[in-house]
């Protein structure tokens, strides 16, 4: 059975895929599907309860929560996608260098990666953001760096394994440069694993962006970011609980969606990875 056939039989993965598609549509079509301008304030309607004019209620400034959640999906998906791209590209570069060079450089890089993998990442992300300063771009960088070590390990592992195969040996003997080897022989072998990793990473990236924004160190107001919305809602939690709790649901649904798709992809594309990560 092909990968899509295996994926399709996994009901939870299909639910996840549907949710991802809805999120993507919301992000792309935000100006057309959002009922109100996400920045439009209406102080007489502040903290309006869900239902009625505002389906999900209004926040502290009387801004429509549904519209802000729809616009917030842009931030979540963009930070997620870009940081996943940083993780994959960085991991490809470092993993290839470590795998092809070997020797002390490889050893030093692997020790450094073990240290990074072992350390509670939110703490390092905090240090990075503290140094770079808050903002969407710096958050993306901090989240992306987090993903580099695992990708480096995946890439290095398969470079090491494939380096010894006869066809790669033959290609090298014929004088193929390292980059050609990478593109023709190594990449095709690791693409499934990288797709799985990147999908599961998106889930964690969305969580981390939300956490940093919640702490006030990520995306800055007035941009609509889910974590930031929870954070501002926290100030009025006891008088208007929906302001903080409703945007949090969006984070959970998005993370759940990418986790489900990632699990489904892992089982469909690369059964060997089952149970890993």
């Amino acid at each position, binding site marked *: 059975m092909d990968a899509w056939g295996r994926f399709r039989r996994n009901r939870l993965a299909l639910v996840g895929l549907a949710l991802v598609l809805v999120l993507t549509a919301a992000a792309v079509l935000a100006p057309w599907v959002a009922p109100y301008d996400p920045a439009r304030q209406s102080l007489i309607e502040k903290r309006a309860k869900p239902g009625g004019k505002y389906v999900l209620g209004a926040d502290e400034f009387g801004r429509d929560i549904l519209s802000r959640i729809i616009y917030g999906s842009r931030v979540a998906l963009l930070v997620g996608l870009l940081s996943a791209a940083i993780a994959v590209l960085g991991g490809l570069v470092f993993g290839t260098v470590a795998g092809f060079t070997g020797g002390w450089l490889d050893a030093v890089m692997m020790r450094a990666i073990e240290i990074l993998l072992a*350390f509670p990442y939110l703490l*390092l992300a905090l240090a*990075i*953001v503290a140094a770079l300063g808050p903002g969407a771009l710096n958050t993306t960088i901090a989240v992306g760096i987090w993903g580099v070590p695992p990708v480096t390990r995946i890439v290095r592992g398969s470079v090491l394994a494939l380096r010894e195969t006869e066809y790669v040996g033959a290609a090298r003997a014929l004088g193929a440069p390292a980059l050609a080897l990478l593109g023709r022989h190594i990449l095709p072998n690791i693409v499934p694993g990288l797709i799985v990793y990147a999908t599961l990473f998106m889930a964690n990236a969305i*969580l981390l962006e939300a*956490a940093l924004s919640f702490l006030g160190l990520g995306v800055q107001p007035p941009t609509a970011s889910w974590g930031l919305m929870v954070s501002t809602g926290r100030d009025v939690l006891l008088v208007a*609980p929906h302001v*903080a709790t409703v945007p949090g649901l969006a*984070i959970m649904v998005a993370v759940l969606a990418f*986790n489900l798709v990632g699990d489904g992809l892992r089982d469909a594309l690369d059964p060997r990875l089952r149970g890993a990560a």
Partner: protein
Amino acid sequence: MVTFILRRLLLAVPVLLGVVFVVMLTIDLLPGDAVTLMLGEHATKDAVAKLRDHLGLDKPFLVRYLDYVGRVVRGDLGRSIQQNRPVAAELADAWPATLELTVAALLIATVAGLAAGVASAVWPNSFFDALARLGSLFGLSMPIFWTGLVLIVVFSLWLNWLPVGGSGSLSHLVLPAVTLAMPSVAMVSRMTRSAVLDVLREDYVRTARAKGVGEIWVLGRHALRNAFIPILTLVGLQSGQLMGGAVLTETVFAWPGLGRLMVKAIFARDYVLLQGAVLVFALAFVIINLLVDLSYGLLDPRVGRQG
């Protein structure tokens, strides 16, 4: 055993050195002048020069790094810029609260995770199994700062059972500990389920059953004991997750621990304090994983003999 402990302690040294290096380097790469950022744009030239000198910022990075490491070894973590107190004293005030919170969360995660995981494995594909697996999916997907707020709304606002925040009594501890434990409960129950399922397929379990050993005994004596090693490894790794989560949980519940201190240090641009806090977290992480490694020997006699 002693050599094993010593070797592990020696291995921890490069980890700690590396963490300090990375944190100092990120701070060093800061765009703009750290001192001006700390003191504000209207600071006098004199004050800027004094702070630069105090922080040793005029020296090259490596010199400062070695300097800091040398002072840390002698127990001097510097003075916090904002409070003008020794960093060591600030950290000493904060760490017991974080320890209390994370230990409570780790206990909840282990007990609840093990119970749910074992039940799932003993009755696979049952209604409970489906419920537990769905629950763990959600547990892994919920941002914990949000879980905390939802728990506050339900248990403090609606039911009025537990305080909204702060610390001091057991009732203050319940919500933050449960919040912090949530993702770990999910991880531990997932891992326990698959570990116990694996062990239950082993020949020795079949043998034990064949010779008439009771099911409870099979589970306790054979299955759980062997499933414990992977679970324990995970619990050790989870402690790192818990420390990261502690930063968020402490912020949500106004819990006076290291995590909140760290966030405060970041907002105050108090990098001396920030470095100290990260260092304490790293040290705690290393110690916990050392304890986990040591307990392998207690659980599995094969480990100690090779060490």
